[in-house]
């Protein structure tokens, strides 16, 4: 025993050199070793090497206004933003009649305000949060609907819609309307109203706009929203069905999930748009736009189901048994005990599916539907504008659009994770 007993005191070590200031930070974070030091230098060199060219191409040498592609074709010019500006209406609305664009605007405005109110976390309503809510929504509507350029060109109607959006956002925020009611409005009233507004109805005095004219960003958002809104509840039901003790329910849930997951999405699209019309009479076949949207939603539901099931598996059996002991029914157990825990666990996975859904909307283009990316592809071909810089410019624009949305979803989910996961945070 005594062998391991230390008799004298350990010598006092000098305190560690607390590296302070900028140099210390650099030393800690960037040049902390033989591997990261040269790597950091290499990346700095890369940034220094690339940035000036990017700035020159996208900003300094860019063509901001022009009437046709001639100015963009001049050698040495940069990005052709004039092209994006000219085609912006087409990118946003596709072939939707120009005089009826306000209907799309109103639908987007209502959707933004309502969903923002629903997604905004309750509880800690800091001044900052309120500020962000009331600034963020108008900013989004402003960018999505009138656009900085259009609002100068034709201010009246666009401004009215923008003002309406801000007013509605304020009203929702201050009216103490319960989230349940907002949810009902969003999930029940809004789709019906939106469908009538977009398709038109003689009763409301709106001319009919056929779905083959729908397109652009508006259509991408529509497809993504329907997919996302439908897939989560359907996925939850399917996941519960797959774990159900009723054999028929379980069988059909498994059949559905496995069948849909076993088939490529593109096949589903082709089936919907080229096979279906072969088998059903002309007047029966559903709308050409509805077919891929329904396919999209059903497809997403199967993936969502497996994600949710992963969460359900992770909940210990004791939770369910404890709830049973309290006398809760099946649905009460699920709603109050199991699902809140399971869904919180799989937020990253769910958002992963949402993000991939949002990007998969571009696939509907292969059955001839003019979503945002397809609209860009069509506009790019326009001989009046075609030039060597048009494609890089417009694809950068598209990349920025998709990135902003996907990154936004990702950040939002991380915030929700932190709030909901407070008990498990490491």
């Amino acid at each position, binding site marked *: 025993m005594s062998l391991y007993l230390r008799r004298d005191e350990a010598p006092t070590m000098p305190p560690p050199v607390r590296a302070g200031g900028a140099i210390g930070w650099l030393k800690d974070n960037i040049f902390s070793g033989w591997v990261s030091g040269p790597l950091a230098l290499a990346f700095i060199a890369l940034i220094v090497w690339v940035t000036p060219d990017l700035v020159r191409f996208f900003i300094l040498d860019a063509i901001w206004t022009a009437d*046709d*592609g001639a100015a963009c*074709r001049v*050698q040495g010019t940069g990005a052709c933003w004039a092209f994006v500006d*000219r*085609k912006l*209406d*087409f990118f946003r*609305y*596709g*072939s*939707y009649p*120009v005089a009826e664009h306000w209907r799309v605007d109103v639908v987007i405005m209502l959707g933004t305000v309502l969903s923002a109110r629903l997604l905004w976390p309750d509880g800690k309503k800091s001044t900052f949060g309120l500020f962000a809510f009331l600034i963020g929504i108008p900013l989004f509507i402003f960018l999505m609907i009138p656009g900085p350029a259009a609002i100068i060109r034709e201010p009246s109607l666009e401004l009215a819609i923008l003002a309406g959006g801000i007013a509605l956002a304020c009203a929702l925020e201050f009216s103490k309307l319960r989230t349940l009611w907002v949810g009902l409005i969003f999930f029940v009233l809004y789709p019906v109203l939106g469908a009538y507004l977009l398709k038109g109805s003689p009763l409301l005095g709106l001319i009919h706009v*056929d779905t*083959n*004219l729908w*397109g652009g960003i508006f259509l991408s958002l529509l497809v993504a929203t329907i997919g996302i809104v439908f897939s989560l509840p359907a996925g939850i039901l399917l996941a519960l069905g797959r774990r159900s003790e009723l054999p028929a329910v379980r069988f059909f849930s498994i059949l559905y999930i496995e069948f849909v997951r076993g088939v490529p999405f593109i096949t589903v699209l*082709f089936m919907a*748009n*080229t096979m279906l*019309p*072969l*088998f*059903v*009479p*002309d007047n029966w*076949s559903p709308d*050409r736009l509805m077919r891929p949207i329904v396919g999209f939603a059903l497809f997403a539901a199967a993936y969502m189901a497996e994600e949710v099931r992963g969460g359900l598996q992770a909940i210990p059996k004791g939770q369910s048994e404890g709830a049973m002991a309290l006398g809760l029914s099946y649905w009460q157990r699920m709603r109050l005990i199991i699902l809140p825990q399971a869904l919180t666990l799989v937020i990253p996975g769910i958002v992963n599916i949402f993000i991939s859904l949002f990007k998969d909307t571009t696939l509907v283009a*292969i*059955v*001839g539907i*003019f979503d945002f990316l*397809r*609209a860009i*592809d*069509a*506009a790019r*071909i*326009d*001989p*009046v504008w*075609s*030039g*060597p810089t*048009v*494609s890089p410019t417009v694809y950068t624009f598209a990349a920025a659009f998709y990135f902003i949305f996907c990154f936004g979803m990702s950040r939002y989910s991380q915030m929700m994770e932190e709030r909901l996961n407070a008990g498990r945070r490491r």
Partner: protein
Amino acid sequence: MKAIAATFLAAMTLGAMSQSAAAQAGSKTLDLIKQKGALTCGTNTGLAGFGLPDDKGNWTGLDVDLCKGIAAAIFNDPTKVKYIPLSAKDRFTALQSGEIDVLARNGTWTQSREAELGLLWVGVNYYDGQGFMVRKKLNIASALELNGASVCVQQGTTTELNMSDFFRTKGMKYEAVAFADINEAVKAYDSGRCDAYTTDASGLYGSRLKLVNPDEHVVLPEIISKEPLGPAVRQGDDQWFNLVKWTHYAMINAEELGVTKANVDDMLKSPNPEIKRLLGVEGDFGKGLGLSKDWAYRIVKHVGNYGEVFSRNVGEGSALKIKRGLNSLWSAGGIQYAPPVR
């Protein structure tokens, strides 16, 4: 399991039956269009000059104008068209299944497509063919001087095959630089990777505008393949076939007789009997097509004659600036020829 199989078979049979029902109903394509209130026209998903939505999302192009012409003849309103953009893959299925009434999507008229797919081409609204583009500074005036040249081409297309045939029969050497994507091929040519670039002539003019300096490049006059592009309809409805065909011919006849969008109202008073018959002043030639007497007048009034449509979409009046060439009227050295209205 057996029950499932039986149900599936029954569904298939039902499908096949309804398909043949659709084919029978197809003999009344025109009635169906009138009932729906709009012509359903299959278009390209985007080809400059032939079918492309403009800044406002309105469809324009040579093929699109034919659809507008048909709608003008039926409804006296060229806007009553529903455009369905179709990819190369599903264009023929869409026509076969009755989803569209006419396919105006620069499809090449070939024997197998008519004989095997159950389609009928109504005519040729654009005689295309494969051509070459080179740099002006090479000082080449003919494709026959391309011996030893490297040529950028899209992989796996008939274009590649045509080129190999052309060089082989002429006993010339060449180096093919193939790319999977057509835009890559154009880019490689532009960066100087190849001496020449080849694709269908109509596409060459469009590609030229994508180059860094379009004026430094020239399209050679030789056309080395036949690509007759035109609208197609389903077999089994001869009246509808005639209607589409004569819409096309009416535009060509109007050009030949000098009837334009601008002067068509004055031409109603023309003493020329051919013009009188065409515009419905004399006789009733629309009846056999299921149309009104002034069917051709409506087409020219709303859309214009073939020359105007050509110029506006692909010719001098457009950004593409394609020369008429083979598409000139027969009386002007081309092969666009329409039977007379009488």
